[in-house]
């Protein structure tokens, strides 16, 4: 017959074993739920905006090369790229105007990002920077040719990642039109100057 003491010792051992099993099982479940399986990871905001800008750049370049150059006055002469293209039967939007049209279409299609072409010296005042970060970004890219600007800002209670990419005077028509335009605040642009910037904004 077992003594009371040995019975107590036996039950203590059982309890300890039970506790050990429960602990190991709980730890295993915890580790599996935390680290197990493939988990979707988000894209870094800068990677996201750089990718968007790469597409915008490519489309704008291709429009310039394949449509404006090929079919315009220096090519087939079939179209007339002009600011007032709507007034002409064979008028075609300038690359910057095509770019803006894309931005407007994107605004209508989704709310996951916005983009706009802005300038510290806009011909149309609605294209001037509106937020302090836009102004900071446009100033930075003007002062640091070849560099981009990245930052975060809060607008209307929403946090945004804001990237500003340089818009460069790449052709004589860019410079001539802006310098000679009746509404331009700046008349001494030169080829290679940063005339403004593409502002891409992504809600965080």
């Amino acid at each position, binding site marked *: 017959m077992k003594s009371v003491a040995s019975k107590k010792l036996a039950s203590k051992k059982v309890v300890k074993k039970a506790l050990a099993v429960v602990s190991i099982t709980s730890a295993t479940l915890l580790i599996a739920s935390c680290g197990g399986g493939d988990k979707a990871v988000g894209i870094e905001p800068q990677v996201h905006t750089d990718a968007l800008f790469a597409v915008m750049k490519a489309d704008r370049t291709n429009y310039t090369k394949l449509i404006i*150059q090929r079919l315009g006055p220096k090519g087939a002469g079939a179209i007339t790229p002009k600011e007032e293209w709507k007034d002409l039967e064979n008028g075609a939007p300038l690359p910057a105007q095509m770019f803006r049209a894309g931005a407007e279409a994107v605004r209508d299609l989704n709310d996951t990002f916005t983009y706009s072409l802005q300038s510290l010296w806009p011909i149309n005042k609605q294209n001037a920077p509106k937020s302090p970060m836009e102004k900071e970004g446009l100033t930075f890219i003007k002062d640091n040719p070849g560099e*981009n600007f990245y930052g975060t800002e809060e607008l209307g209670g929403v946090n945004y990642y804001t990237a500003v990419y340089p818009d460069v005077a*790449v052709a004589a028509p860019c410079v001539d039109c802006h310098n000679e335009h009746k509404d331009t605040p700046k008349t001494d642009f030169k*080829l290679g100057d940063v005339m403004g910037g593409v502002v891409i904004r992504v809600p965080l």
Partner: protein
Amino acid sequence: MISNKGKLILVSLLLILVSACSSKDPDLAIGEKIYTGACKVCHSQGINGAPVFGNEKNWGPRKAQGLDVLVEHASNGFGLMPAKGGKAELTEDQIRAAIKYMLSALEE
């Protein structure tokens, strides 16, 4: 224990080594300066289709055409690139140095 003469020789050797490692090809240094001031605005990220600095895919076929061809293209304009990137004051030597600098960013 190293003698004073030995220490002097050692220090001299170290100085020669450091200066050899840190000396840049003067052409590349000039090229970098020209690139930063005149070319980087477009070539750092491919504005208007410009071949991107350090991008093997963009520069590989161009490098194969030879330096003289690239200098001629950059000097007179090519495709969507305006002559001398709009910097009319650049000399052919400066353009050559800038292109050599851009080519130096590619892997051999």
